[in-house]
């Protein structure tokens, strides 16, 4: 049945889009952490009072959060790839289903608002407003979550 096959392909496409963005984000974070570690090693080797950091991972996490907060204070918010899975999943689950679907289509499936508007029959500006309002809610929740 055509509808059933279309639905199954849709599931695989959505999952693939999710995996692609997650892998891209994880690679970006890994590279960032490695670059930071190398820069610290080069810098601290010259420091006579340097003591080896036993828990670099914990230290890096603190630095990363400080950087996020500093950027948000200046109105710069992280890209989807920069958000950790746990925070993002928790925030997205709080949205309404329509908002979740819209974010999924635009972010993970990389569909333009024009295309989503054509497919859903809803006005483009309404979709855009809904999308950016959902992002605002996510940022607020993530800002308040620990």
């Amino acid at each position: 049945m055509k509808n059933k096959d279309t639905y199954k392909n849709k599931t695989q496409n959505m999952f693939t889009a999710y995996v692609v963005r997650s892998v891209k984000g994880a690679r970006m974070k890994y590279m960032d952490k490695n670059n930071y570690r190398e820069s610290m090693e080069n810098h601290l080797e010259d420091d006579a009072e340097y003591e080896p950091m036993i828990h670099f991972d914990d230290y890096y996490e603190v630095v990363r959060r400080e950087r996020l907060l500093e950027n948000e204070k200046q109105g710069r918010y992280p890209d989807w790839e920069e958000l950790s899975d746990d925070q993002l999943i928790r925030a997205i689950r709080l949205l309404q289903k329509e908002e979740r679907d819209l974010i999924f289509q635009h972010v993970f499936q990389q569909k333009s608002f024009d295309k989503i508007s054509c497919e859903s029959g809803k006005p483009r500006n309404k979709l855009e407003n809904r999308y950016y309002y959902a992002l605002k809610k996510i940022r607020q929740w993530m800002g308040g979550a620990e």
Partner: protein
Amino acid sequence: MSFEVILQQAKEGNTQAILEIVEMYKPLIIRNAIVEGFFDEDLYQELIRVVLSCIKRFELLA
């Protein structure tokens, strides 16, 4: 077997289904584990972990 069925089984913890899905996405994982022309084993392991996490977190449409 359809992808949806395999994914559902993987989410329930079926090892064979999990392995099958990881195999499907292995080219993507390997491509992203190459850094400056060299294969990074640690990054590869991390990306495998990410795919496993995606299997667990992805919600199938009802």
